[in-house]
């Protein structure tokens, strides 16, 4: 078990390292370089451009820059924002709770609706309810979440006045964004829930339970459902990235604070270090969530051995 934990943790560290390197090289090797773009919009002279390059250490060979980037990153230094002149990492961590709040709320919405439609569809397989729930889940999946967000604002905030229009101050503010983001997630989960549930229902122990004369509700609730719920954790982990990506746009629609909002503003301000840091932290967060999922999986399902 301990060997497994160590292995998975090391693998996660390697992936985070890979992601950081990928982001670094993408931002440094591609033709459009930070300084050129930054200065082309401010109209600086060639001398000033050169000065800024030297100041930022961009004149060094790429591998030297890479080494310096890694050495700093390990110590938690992702550079200083070109715009606010503050270190990047604290700025990101300030915004993190709001994004996590949204992601968690959207996950709850997604799991509740996804489980309901997916499981009932599987239990009533090949009935009209099965078709309807799968149609609803595909509709939810195809809905652009920012459009849904705009419609929610239109109907529930502006016309009915039930919810605050924008912002992220209170927990009340998270309801509409969570639904806008979570409903498409629910569509995704409903389809997955249905297939896992169908798989479990086809297994021998379910047949045995039925053969013993266990009542159908009990077969579903006590035998099938428990086993079908195990993969849900993995599914949530894998799709956490989906929620993080979606939260960027939702944060803009609802003018919420968060990492997405921070990164978008950084892109418009050509704040490269902030963009770089924001993306690496997001990816690391995603890896971390999946690591936790992998590790808890064994606790939830004792059949899995870590030999």
């Amino acid at each position: 078990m301990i060997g497994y934990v160590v292995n998975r943790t090391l693998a996660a560290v390697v992936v985070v390292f890979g992601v950081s390197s990928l982001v670094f090289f993408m931002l440094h090797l591609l033709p459009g370089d930070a300084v050129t773009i930054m200065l082309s919009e401010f109209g600086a002279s060639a001398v000033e451009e050169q000065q800024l390059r030297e100041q930022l250490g961009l004149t060094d060979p790429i591998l030297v820059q890479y080494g310096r980037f890694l050495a700093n990153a390990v110590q938690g230094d992702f550079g200083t924002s070109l715009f606010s002149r503050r270190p990047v990492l604290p700025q990101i961590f300030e915004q993190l709770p709001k994004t996590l709040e949204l992601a968690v709320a959207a996950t709850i919405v997604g799991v509740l609706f996804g489980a309901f439609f997916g499981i009932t569809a599987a239990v009533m397989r090949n009935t009209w309810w099965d078709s309807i729930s799968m149609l609803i889940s595909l509709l939810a999946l195809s809905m652009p979440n920012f459009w849904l967000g705009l419609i929610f604002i239109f109907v529930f905030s502006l016309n009915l006045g039930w919810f605050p229009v924008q912002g992220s101050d209170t927990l009340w503010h998270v309801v509409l964004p969570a639904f806008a983001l979570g409903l498409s997630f629910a569509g995704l989960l409903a389809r997955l829930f249905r297939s896992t549930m169908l798989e479990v229902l086809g297994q021998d122990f379910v047949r045995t339970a039925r053969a013993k004369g266990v009542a159908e509700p009990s077969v579903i609730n006590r035998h099938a459902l428990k086993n079908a719920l195990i993969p849900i954790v993995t599914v949530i982990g894998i799709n956490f990235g989906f929620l993080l990506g979606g939260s960027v746009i939702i944060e803009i629609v609802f003018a919420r604070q968060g990492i997405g909002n921070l990164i978008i503003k950084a892109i418009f301000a050509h704040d490269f270090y902030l963009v770089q840091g924001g993306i690496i932290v997001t990816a690391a967060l995603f890896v971390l969530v999946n690591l936790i999922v992998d590790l808890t999986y064994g606790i939830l399902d004792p059949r899995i051995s870590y030999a």
Partner: protein
Amino acid sequence: MTDRGSDPAAATQAPLPEAVAAPSPGPAAPLGTSQSSIVWGQFRKHRLAMFSLYLMAALYGAALFADFIAPYGEGQSFRRGEMNRSYAPPTTIYWTDPETGRLTRPYVHPVAPVRDAQTLRVAYVEDRTRAYPIRFFVEGRPYVPPPLSLVPVGIRNALGWDWSATTRLYGVEFPATIYLWGADQFGRDVFGRVLFGARISLTIGILASLIALVLGTILGGIAGYVGGVVDDVIMRLVEVFATIPSLFLLLALRALFPIEINPTAIFVVLVTILGFISWGSIARVVRGLALSLREEEYVLAAKALGGRDARVLLRHVLPGTAAYAIVAFSLLIPSFILTEAGLSFLGLGISEPASSWGLMLAVAQEGGIQTFTQRPWMLLPGLFIFIAVLGFNFLGDGLRDALDPKLRK
């Protein structure tokens, strides 16, 4: 796929990509049904997929003939003085004669902008004394007619092809204006711009998916067929790409280009980036199949006969993976449409004066979200994103069912 092992010749002679990309019922073939007609026969049984096929065909047709269908040009705006139509609501079309009350040919009243002295808001007041009938096949702004409009401008100019057409499906005479779905901030026709926007929104997904398909098939094929270190390197790369939520990867790459960038350039940039970051899912599928296919007897036979690796891979291994690669491909398209719309909505994708559905939605929020209850028609482009994504999802579902031999009856 069923005859993969027993009849390799058929699989190589009739490569699946073509068969699936252009399914045609053709003449009935009672003796020995071809792979493509089996797939088409299966596909036709999927009612939602068939409905989506017609729907998407209609959308693409409307996009192609947008200049003809729309009453005004893509950038034609009405924003000055008496002709100011900024955020003008959908034009009311009248069908009955006000005096006799009988049905008459449809007509509209011209509107005039009136600014409210207190709220400073512009309202549009109809002038009931004048009526302008809606005319069909009217003369409008000149445009380049399809199929010539599919040829890039540079090539058209070089060859001196400068034909233009002026006929538009419907229109009204000035100073009356006709906006079926209202006007945007510059007094441009939302209906027309939805059609023009379809051109970008509906092609970007397909082009990007094609890049991902080619990259994913080749890299996945090599990984599975060659194996060893090559396999490890390629698959680790896929894993790293999959670790960064794709929108963030896209944002990082987008940050390398200036914010203000001309629409054609950003179109190319978006297609390339989307394609290059999304080949992983296809590569995974193709690699898995290539791993098993390379052990098949017909592949071993091809090698034993002295076929070079590249030839064996291209002619014998990859065709066998086509069905699954195509399904993965078709499911990428809707996600790309959503991504493009999202980026354009954020102001990082397609930019003015071009139109795309995501960009049009961004305008809905412009000028303060509080005011947008007064112009709900600005939300209409989102409906089209929804329809297009749904249509492609159904098509993908239908394709998957049709290509899966296990589901055949």
